[in-house]
């Protein structure tokens, strides 16, 4: 395999900002399913993985559900998404390694360029690297493993922790939840499985890195996180893909269970190339006095439809979603959050900041729902949009469903443009127009970025600056 450096700048698509558009050769792949989706492909995936019968049946049932559900007609434009033009399963390497030295050269070099091994040394408690459909590298700090922390890929988890997986798999997001959850349930591969035992607090983040390499690839990882009572974890995921002229599909399902008094923070820095459809279902259930936080940064992809949800199941549960979306040329970010108050005395907060430029479209779509018996709930929603030019667009779709009188719900929304005076002021101090715009945008998202651990804050600001480069003609 040879890394194709010639496509690394991706200038051919006019999106010179994107740094991760390079790809490796796929000649030596262990397995590559033919294009298209049918019952046989689903069975083939299950057979390749030597799965138990229950999982095979789960997949086939989900496939039928997928067929029976119509395509969503709301959100983004899915009319060009052709399910028969996609490879649903690709395996680049035979096995998962515990040392980067054992990972095939090309793949290792790709992760080197993405900075993963370096980050692992500096500030991570564990890493999973998924390349196409399978996890090719995994590590976890020894002391955490000794404490009973499990951080593995979901395929291995089915073999190694069958009871734990079977008890929770598909309970937070059932296959019939939506068309793409059904699709994922039918063809899922890889993803992270995390179990944090009672009272174990993991200080440093666990990180997963998802990489699509091939053209017309479908990546369908399946993540299940169980944080037991009084435990805490911060999980971070990053994602990139090469730039191709044809579409790829990323459709993950992420299920999280945060038990009583536990904490979970899930941070996403999504930076897919601009030919990827990113249609992801993420949902957490938070029990008594638990805290669930989604920090969701969407910078890449052609179309993202993603609304991380938190079901507040028992009194005292808290949910928080911080969402940053950046829609550049040819991009539509349809992102937001859902908070469902199922119990009294639960509270939620949604903060959304979106930026659109060069014809990009950023939509906030959010739901706050309060069930009939859920008294004394509090919810606070703030969405701010910044539109950088006249071609770009921002929309807000806030849905509020309240079946309970004793609640306190606040919703604020603002849309602003970069004022001429702000640009002039910064430029009069020697900043170029591009630097001034980038500084204004960085300032706009600063209230969210400062909530991130420093390394990720730096990364987020760097990505925003890259997005802003060349934005001024």
């Amino acid at each position: 395999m040879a890394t194709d450096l010639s496509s690394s700048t991706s200038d051919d698509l006019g999106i010179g900002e994107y740094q991760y558009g390079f790809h490796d050769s796929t000649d030596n792949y262990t397995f590559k399913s033919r294009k298209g989706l049918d019952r046989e492909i689903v069975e083939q995936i299950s057979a390749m993985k030597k799965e138990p019968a229950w999982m095979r049946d789960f997949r086939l049932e989900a496939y039928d559900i997928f067929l029976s559900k119509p395509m969503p007609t709301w959100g983004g434009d899915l009319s060009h998404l052709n399910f028969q033009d996609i490879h649903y399963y690709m395996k680049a390497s035979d096995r998962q390694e515990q040392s980067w030295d054992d990972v095939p050269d090309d793949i290792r070099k790709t992760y080197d360029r993405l900075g993963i091994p370096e980050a692992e040394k500096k500030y991570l408690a564990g890493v999973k690297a998924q390349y196409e459909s399978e996890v090719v590298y995994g590590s976890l700090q020894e002391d955490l493993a000794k404490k009973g922390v499990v951080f593995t890929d979901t395929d291995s988890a089915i073999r190694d922790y069958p009871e734990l997986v079977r008890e929770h798999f598909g309970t937070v997001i059932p296959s019939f939840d939506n068309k793409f959850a059904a699709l994922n349930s039918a063809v899922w591969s890889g993803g992270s499985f995390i179990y944090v035992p009672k009272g174990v607090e993991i200080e440093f983040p666990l990180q997963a890195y998802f990489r699509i390499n091939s053209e017309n690839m479908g990546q369908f990882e399946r993540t299940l996180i169980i944080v037991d009572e009084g435990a805490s974890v911060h999980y971070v995921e990053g994602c990139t893909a090469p730039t191709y002229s044809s579409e790829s599909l990323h459709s993950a399902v992420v299920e999280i269970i945060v038990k009583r008094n536990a904490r979970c923070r899930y941070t996403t820095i999504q930076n897919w190339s601009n030919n990827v459809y990113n249609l992801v279902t993420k949902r957490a259930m938070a029990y008594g006095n638990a805290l669930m936080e989604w920090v969701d940064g969407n910078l890449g992809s052609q179309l993202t439809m993603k609304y991380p949800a938190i079901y507040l199941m028992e009194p005292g549960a808290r949910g928080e979603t911080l969402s940053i979306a950046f829609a550049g040329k040819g991009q539509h970010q349809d992102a937001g959050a859902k908070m469902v108050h199922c119990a009294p005395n639960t509270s939620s907060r949604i903060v959304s900041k979106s930026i659109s430029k060069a014809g990009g479209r950023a939509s906030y779509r959010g739901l706050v729902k309060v069930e009939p018996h859920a008294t004394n709930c509090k919810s606070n929603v703030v969405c701010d949009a910044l539109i950088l030019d006249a071609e770009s667009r921002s929309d807000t779709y806030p849905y509020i469903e309240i079946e309970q009188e004793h609640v306190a719900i606040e919703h604020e929304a603002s849309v602003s443009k970069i004022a001429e005076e702000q640009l002039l002021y910064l430029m009069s101090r020697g900043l170029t127009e591009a630097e001034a715009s980038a500084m204004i945008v960085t300032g706009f998202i600063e209230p969210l970025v400062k909530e991130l651990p420093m390394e990720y804050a730096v990364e987020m600001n760097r990505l925003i600056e890259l997005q802003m480069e060349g934005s001024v003609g």
Partner: protein
Amino acid sequence: MVASLKIQDLHVSVEGLPILRGVSLEVRQGEIHALMGPNGSGKSTLAYTLVGHPKYEITQGSIEIDGKPLNELDACERARLGLFLAFQYPIVIPGVKVADFLRHAITNIRNPDRKEGEGLIPMREFRKELKAMMDELGMDSEFARRYLNEGFSGGEKKRMEILQLAMLKPRFAVLDETDSGLDSDAVRVVSEGLRKLSGPQMGVLIITHHERLLEYNVPQFTHVMLAGKIVETGDASLARELHNEGYSKVRLRHPEEAAEEAARASGRSSEANRTAEPASV
């Protein structure tokens, strides 16, 4: 060699309405000039035009620094040539820390040929310099961590302008009513700050309709503007006279401009003048 900021026969329109009608003025490094005049005479228009506000259209005449024409340059390029405007209404930039902003600005000003993305001046060096300058201007170092002008009082904003002036060390500083809206203590602080900064390396144009700032920074030249023209130029005593007696004598001496001023006030141009001042303060 002493550099100069030279304005020749400058005509400026805002949204098609002529505001400046032939302004000529030369400020050399080391000189202090005062520019006075009643409201609406075009003082702030001149300031915004100098700094390169895109809304202010030069229809005739030129601005030069050291013989280099500025007319076609944007605000950033003008700043890199050594021009600075202390804004009458400093702009709020939410989420941008004073220190981050200043470090970026200083890097660009000191290295005008810097390409985007090249490194900034070293953090330690910068912090030390900023701290020293804030101490000298009697500013709490906490300012450096605040967001630029966000939640600042009027006096804090003006002091922030002076701090920027101090850090950027321009060859030409234009101060647009830096003393307005401040109590006398704040005026003293700002005035003393400016006095410390100005010197043989800096040419200063102070726009004011009071003369308090001028007590600390005595001008060699005082210019009076009326209806978009400089109608008189004198020394510091002219500034004092205007402060004590107002503009009625000036109007009598220049009936044509006074008539134009009255015509603007009664309608057509007054609107344009209002838009000259940003709505967001």
